[in-house]
């Protein structure tokens, strides 16, 4: 009888503890992995910030195969995690099916729009942030040539390139923007050697500032730009500290804020479509001690002016992904 009682007691405790876990949020990283010094790591930092501030716990998983996307979503939703946040546009297809099966669970997807009543879609206005660093590049360059190095050749990265070119040409309309993509496969995100080679080639073609939107490949770009004595611009996280003095600035994309906000709202997550742009701190230009000497007053003023005009709508930066064309290159 007492044995039975302790069993029941244990079962009850188990039920209680699993009940306590019910409201915990969960985060799913994309195939790149948690510590990629870029997109996923930014998401991780947001979750960690939430955990540190609230003392809460969350569950996360790093995928190894595409079939695991739906599996992980379903397992988290089944086990009562709410909200379930996923970093990356590749989750769209899986989320569409899973969201319909779990109407009481809230989901948040970053970098993609999924139209379902229980899904929050967070996208970033990368073209606006890129426009600003394009303006900065135009002021930093003495001549009229700057360049861009993308990771994998896909519309999202062209969106960065196109915003950058527009910003540059708003200052130097007759200038040249050299655009190179590292590759066509996901390996292009992690090829610092090739990033360095492209940087050297672009410098030979006259480029004075190179903007890298290329994940791990960008680390090679930043390094080579320093070796070759030209300026570089970082991306996603603030990368100014990586090569202090030669990184002009970084186009930051606050994925961490998106994750942090979703976790903060918990199961009361506000669903729908949300754009994180210049006006709400979703993208921006990184300023710190490492690049203070590179940013002239003229440049800072021009950046503030452009930023205000984009927010007010006076300047409309063309979004490459709206029609897959770019007016500036």
């Amino acid at each position: 009888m007492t044995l039975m009682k302790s069993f029941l007691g244990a079962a009850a405790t188990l039920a209680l503890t699993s009940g306590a876990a019910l409201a915990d949020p969960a985060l799913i990283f994309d195939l790149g992995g948690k510590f990629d010094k870029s997109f996923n790591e930014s998401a991780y930092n947001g979750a960690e910030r939430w955990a540190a501030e609230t003392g809460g716990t969350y569950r996360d998983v790093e995928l190894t195969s595409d079939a695991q996307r739906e599996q992980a979503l379903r397992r988290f939703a089944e086990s009562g995690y709410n909200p379930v946040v996923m970093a990356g546009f590749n989750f769209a297809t899986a989320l569409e099916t899973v969201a319909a099966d779990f109407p009481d669970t809230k989901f948040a997807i970053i970098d993609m729009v999924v139209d379902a009543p229980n899904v929050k879609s967070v996208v970033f206005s990368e073209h606006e942030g890129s426009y600003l660093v394009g303006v900065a590049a135009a002021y930093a360059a003495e001549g009229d040539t700057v360049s861009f190095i993308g990771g994998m050749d896909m519309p999202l990265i062209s969106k960065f390139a196109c915003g950058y070119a527009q910003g540059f040409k708003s200052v130097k309309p007759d200038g040249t923007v050299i655009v190179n993509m590292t590759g066509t496969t996901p390996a292009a995100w992690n090829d610092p050697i090739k990033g360095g080679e492209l940087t050297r080639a672009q410098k030979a073609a006259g480029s004075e500032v190179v903007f890298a939107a290329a994940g791990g490949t960008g680390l090679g770009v930043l390094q080579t730009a320093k070796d070759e004595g030209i300026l570089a611009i970082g991306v996603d996280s603030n990368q100014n500290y990586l090569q202090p003095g030669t990184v002009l600035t970084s186009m930051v994309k606050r994925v961490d804020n998106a994750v942090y906000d979703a976790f903060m709202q918990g199961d009361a997550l506000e669903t729908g479509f949300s754009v994180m742009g210049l006006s709400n701190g979703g993208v921006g230009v990184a300023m710190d001690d490492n690049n203070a000497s590179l940013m002239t007053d003229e440049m800072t003023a021009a950046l503030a002016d452009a930023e205000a005009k984009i927010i007010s709508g006076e300047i409309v930066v063309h979004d490459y992904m709206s029609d897959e064309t770019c007016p500036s290159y």
Partner: protein
Amino acid sequence: MQAMPKWADAILIPFISLLLAFILSGLMIMAIGKDPVVAVQTMVQGAFGSTNGLGYTLYYTTNFIFTGLAIAVAYQARLFNIGGEGQVMLGGVGVALVCLAIDWPHWAIALPAAMIGGAVFGAAWAFIPAYLQAKRGSHIVITTMMFNFIASAFVGYLLINFLKVPGSMSTESAGFPDGAHLPNFHDMLAPFGIEFSANSPANIAFLIALLAAVGFWVLIWKTRLGFEIRSFGASETAAKYAGINPVRITIIAMLISGALCGLMAINNVMGEAERLIDNAPEGAGFIGIAVALMGRNHPIGIVLAALLFGFLVQGGAELNLWESIPRELVMVIQGLVILFTGALDNMVRRPLEKLFLALRKAKEA
């Protein structure tokens, strides 16, 4: 004279090797401060404890049966096909092109067509290294390996420039029509009153993989071509002397190997993703090498080894999900299994052989 009875060679050695690999893995799990017993429970429960988990395990198993058989066919002719990954990728292109070509009325018509598409593309990709080996003597290990990179770049190019849905960011083709939807285990078992998870990816391709295993056995041990392949593998000069054309056998063995790799695409591309994604094989072409090695190039061994690796992939995902054991460590466990069952084979074999010899001597005395 064989030192060991057949059963010891086929069962005892892999079993001991596995045990050693798992003991070492357990120590590694302990070293990062987790409980290895709980880890094993999580893996077994996750891989076999529910029909959903079982469905994932069998889905991965299906992949590995196809690639394992493919590597084994080539290996019977002593050709080391490292290019399974690329051949699976191209097979995926073939399957996708067939599935997207017309609005298929029923899967039973779409499946054979897709199988032909996958097999032809996979075989065509294997043909080039095979030709270079047979005619020019370019080493097949090098060429097939290089062809993986070419395949990856080529498929990426096709996806971005031709197959991608305009305006979409993901490098993936459009979804296949409903008529190309393969029945999964849930659909297949429902008529028999067996409840199987509707959301797991195991599908009818599993049965085709088993059929392929039977076909492999018939081909290698019951046909003239199989005999030629085995003789060529055993000794090229003897085979030539016996009138076997080395060019023909090299190319045919590689074509069959490539076709089997290409067939895998009916499972991952047609059965699971229902669209062509970038890097669809996800390493199955390489795991196939380990599966063939561990399965001793015999279909029964390959099916069992594929099941083991399916268990490791699915159980490993569960470890990552519920035990927060990083995926890198899960890979280490898989690596240890490959190391012990493949590369360190003799470490177990030598002492065992000595043991059996000693036993026999004792008996004779």
